[in-house]
């Protein structure tokens, strides 16, 4: 989230004081993303250094110091709103790495690991939904911010479901087989001979992509 551009957006409505900016920022995000005063002032100083805002020089640093946006600031705000965030590079997702590491460890039942994470994700979602359910707090900004958190968590839950489904299918097709270089605890595990890892298979030509998403080889 860009505090920098959120402050520019608030200043585009007219000149404001630092303290006022902080309050309006928190209200604008449905108070889902609280901001500390220090963050507000360092960001404002940087914006001023870059020529995107100017401050009221007659007043000392503090909550009473006023700021207004410059023409360069308006252009920057417009540019930012229209620039899509970089979604092309997948982040190194800690959860994905945990599941992949789990697959490598013979003693670990990966489906149990997946379930532990699924439970936690759903518990956090329950808390967000409670906040949304509380009509007294209902306002559009808040609902939109909570929806964003819920959809993000929902994507994690769905990935876990898909991972679980893939593992189950793999188990059903090859009950005691080696799964992705690791093993999955299954009913027939240990009874049949494990397949030698990647026996006779040509190496996959995807080392870069695999490394990028955190797959350990």
């Amino acid at each position, binding site marked *: 989230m860009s505090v920098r551009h959120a402050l520019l957006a608030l200043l585009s409505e007219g000149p404001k004081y630092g303290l006022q900016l902080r309050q309006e920022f928190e209200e604008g995000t449905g*108070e*889902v*993303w*609280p901001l*500390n005063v220090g963050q507000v002032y360092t960001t404002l100083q940087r914006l001023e250094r870059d020529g995107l805002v100017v401050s009221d020089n007659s007043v000392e640093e503090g909550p009473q110091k006023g700021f207004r946006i410059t023409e360069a600031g308006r252009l920057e705000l417009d540019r930012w709103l229209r620039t899509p965030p970089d979604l092309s590079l997948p982040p190194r997702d800690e959860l994905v790495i945990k599941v992949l590491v789990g697959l490598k460890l013979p003693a670990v039942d990966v489906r149990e690991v997946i*379930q532990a994470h*699924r*439970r936690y*994700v*759903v*518990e*956090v*979602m*329950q*808390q*967000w*939904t*409670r*906040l949304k*359910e*509380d009509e007294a707090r209902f306002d559009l900004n808040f609902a939109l911010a909570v929806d964003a958190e*819920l*959809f993000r*968590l*929902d994507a994690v*839950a*769905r990935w876990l*479901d898909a991972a*679980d*489904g893939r593992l189950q299918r793999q188990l059903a097709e090859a009950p005691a087989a080696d799964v992705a270089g690791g093993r999955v605890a299954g009913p027939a595990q240990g009874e049949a001979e494990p397949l030698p890892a990647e026996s006779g298979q040509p190496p996959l030509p995807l080392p870069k992509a695999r490394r990028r998403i955190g797959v350990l080889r």
Partner: protein
Amino acid sequence: MSVLVLEKVSKSYGEGATQVSALREVDLTVDAGHLVAIMGPSGSGKSTLLTIAGSLEEPSSGEVLVLGRPLSKMSRAEKAQLRRRTIGFVFQDFNLLPGLTAAENVSLPLELDGIPARRAREAAAAALDELGLGPRGAHFPDQLSGGERQRVAIARAVVGSRQLLLADEPSGALDSVNGEAVMRLIRKACHRGVAAVVVTHDAQLASWADRVVFIRDGQVVDHTASPPDPDQLLAQSEHR
């Protein structure tokens, strides 16, 4: 008070080598006013669990108690009465009768139960009003949107003095805003004391529940702890 109790409920279909276990020794308790979500992938047995809880199907072993009464000791007629008076069902495809208006769909279970038509219609109108569908009572299902049809189905499921609401993917075909409206209505029924069980594979839907029970291969494998104070979330995000 526990409205629904499942004790070691198992269900299998077929015999011998072709036998398939749909449910294995499932225990579940749902108290009045509580919403429980059953979450699991397709084929995990969650719909079977719901039909058994609703007395539409019998378990192979184990017992189901509704308001403390064991279903195994009930005659067919008693079970049918239980389904008319105590249990409300909501299905993914709404299951409204196309030849009846919204109001008639809602009043039908009461009329079948011998309640005079006028009183049944009044109760139906009240249920539709509460769900914001008062003006749509005279419309037929094909004149209603998907979201409205599902609200009619919920009105039908909670009309009268039903105490147990069983819903199978109740927002399955709806978009997320209409899906949320459906869950809000189910929560509202719970606030009035109804016990509800919602079966779903959707985590957002499940997150409306007081407790989420995870089912896999016919067995309960896990459940959520009761959710802590939601304000903790906001407090945590201060430190992000």
